[in-house]
């Protein structure tokens, strides 16, 4: 049977992708950012996941204002890196896992999560930057990916609790897939950052640290956190952190922290990264 063996979260900052693509990873500004992912690169080589359910948000790349799905699951054979205005990132095409993706979509819909099914979609930095951080520069990604795009741009985004419950539904769906697959679930985005208006540049390290702590110590408090708290404390774009709760919900009530990394700044943003495993 397929099983979820780990949950990973990370920020997905476009400037990190640009630094990676332009060979700036050893520059003093960027070196500590990339060094924060050495541990997980080794972890991924040992774990050899077959499939990643990769939760991210599209940044006006695949979806414009014409259609705004709350939860969209990518069921295609493959997904091209998007041209976000400066040409596509020079990274491999992302290979999907249509069998498992359709299985999750069908199972979640029967489980009362009305997913939007996407059969053609380009994927932007929200998805490809985490891939580069976990797997480095490669000719081909070593895993299949099921993109799960969440609307966190046009209000209201889904609540943290709804995200958590979707994570639980995804875990149930994965557990009922007959093939023997090592599946990881990633939540991306965050941590504190604000990219707009006079308050741009907001960073809240104490709040971010407490958020990381609560993923193990008090996840129930995170489930109940209203959007306004993310906005006030973590900046307008810090709302992306609700996506981490899809990862966390999928790991079940108890999960342990294996590794974490936190760094300020990468461009406008606090970089946060955590690796977790389900515990019974």
């Amino acid at each position, binding site marked *: 049977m397929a099983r979820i063996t780990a949950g990973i979260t990370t920020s997905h900052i476009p400037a990190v992708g640009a630094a990676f693509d332009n060979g700036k990873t050893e520059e003093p500004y960027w070196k500590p950012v990339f060094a924060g992912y050495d541990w997980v690169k080794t972890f991924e080589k040992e774990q050899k996941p077959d499939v990643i359910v990769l939760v991210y948000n599209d*940044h*006006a790349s695949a979806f414009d204002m014409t259609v705004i799905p709350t939860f969209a699951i990518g069921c295609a054979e493959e997904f091209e890196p998007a041209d*976000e205005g400066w040409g596509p990132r020079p990274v491999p095409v992302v290979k999907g896992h249509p069998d498992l993706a359709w299985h999750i979509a069908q199972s979640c819909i029967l489980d009362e999560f009305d997913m939007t099914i996407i059969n053609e979609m380009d994927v932007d930095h929200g998805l490809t930057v985490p891939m580069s951080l976990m797997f480095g520069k490669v000719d081909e990604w070593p895993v299949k990916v099921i993109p799960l795009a969440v609307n966190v741009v046009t*209000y209201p985004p889904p*609540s943290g609790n709804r995200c958590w419950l979707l994570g639980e539904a995804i875990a149930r769906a994965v557990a009922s897939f007959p093939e023997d697959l090592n599946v990881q679930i990633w939540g991306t985005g965050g941590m504190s950052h604000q*990219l707009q208006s006079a*308050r*741009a540049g907001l960073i809240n390290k104490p709040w971010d640290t407490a958020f990381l702590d609560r993923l193990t110590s008090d996840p129930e408090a995170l489930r109940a956190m209203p959007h306004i708290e993310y906005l006030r*404390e973590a900046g307008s774009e810090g709302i992306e952190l609700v996506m981490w709760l899809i990862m966390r919900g999928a790991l079940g009530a108890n999960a342990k922290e294996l590794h974490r990394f936190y760094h300020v700044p990468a461009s406008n943003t606090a970089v946060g990264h955590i690796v977790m495993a389900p515990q019974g």
Partner: protein
Amino acid sequence: MTIKDIHSYLAEFDDIPGTRVFTAKRARKGYHLNQFAMSLMKPENRDAFRADESGYLAKWKLTPAQKAAVLARDYNAMLEEGGNIYFLAKLFSTDGKSFQFAAGSMTGMTQEEYAQMMINGGRSPEGVRSIREGR
């Protein structure tokens, strides 16, 4: 946790200093502005826009205020007119500018001052969480 009152949910957003939350009201006001920005994802459209900005903008159903904001590259004004930062990113990318440049331009700081603030740990949330509560 279920939010039962949409009105108080939305009203709280106006209590955050220096922040424009992309609500339905803004999304509706900025629909054509954001779709214009989205069109700049295609290289041929970027070329056409660069060659004749006013002529290109004339093809979109933009208000005079939206057109003026785009031509002036006034990002706060574009947000005020319903623009969303991820859509407007196509515009500053067309100009060869970074997210840090655009974000900095909205704060009244120079690009250098803004970059230095980020290196120093970013803007503190102290005093900019809530207008009403002054915290």
